[in-house]
């Protein structure tokens, strides 16, 4: 599926990467623990409630290109600047982590493990 399908399903806000929503996404990983994200060998879309500069840095190090912030957490200008440097797509939605994951699973996104 594409990021556009995800945005539609989650009624998400696109903070960064409006012109890249045709990117294909196959898998998702949900975590607030960045050390866990740093163990990933694959590069899924990240679903997280942790909204600070380290979330973006972690994506940079782990080569993740897409992130969704849940529960209306809004990324700061610093975060978006760093994300832009790394060509990331940054989304946000109002739903809880649980509901967001449920909707994405229903949509057909696959887990890593």
């Amino acid at each position: 599926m594409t990021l556009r399908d995800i945005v539609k399903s989650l009624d998400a806000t696109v903070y960064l990467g409006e012109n890249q929503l045709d990117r294909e996404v196959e898998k998702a990983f949900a975590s607030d623990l960045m050390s866990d994200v740093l163990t990933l060998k694959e590069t899924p879309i990240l679903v997280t409630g942790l909204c600070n500069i380290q979330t973006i840095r972690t994506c940079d190090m782990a080569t993740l290109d897409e992130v969704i912030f849940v529960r209306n957490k809004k990324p700061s200008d610093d975060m978006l600047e760093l994300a832009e440097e790394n060509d990331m797509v940054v989304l946000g939605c109002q739903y809880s982590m649980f509901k967001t994951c449920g909707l994405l699973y229903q949509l057909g996104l696959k887990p890593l493990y």
Partner: protein
Amino acid sequence: MHQEYTVVEGDFVNAGTASSSVKKTLKQLNVNPQVIKRVVVALYEAEVNAIAHAYGGKVSVDIDSDKIRMVVADKGPGIPDIALAMKEGYSTARPEVRDMGFGAGMGLPNMQKNVDKLNVTSEVGVGTTVEMEVNFV
């Protein structure tokens, strides 16, 4: 090629600047992307540790044609029991470290998984030095 970076205590906003810079350099040198990921994940964890647990320190990076050597040396409380600190899940991190998405006792184990050589030396009340090496091929 030699690079040095300073790590400031509690400066979480800048945690990862050394790793970001090393990532850019290795990309320019056309190092295998999988190897770059291992290098920067390990260095990033080490940077976060120095910021989270110590009173600042220094990151030194030496890049050769076949490998990278990274040394993260901090001034800090030191680690009384290194074997225990290497155990996954063991952590002494403060709440603000956990707020940044770290502090779950995965840092040193993550480093070990990603590097070819890891050496941790520490003196209580003085500081900790983490030496890491990753081969490019």
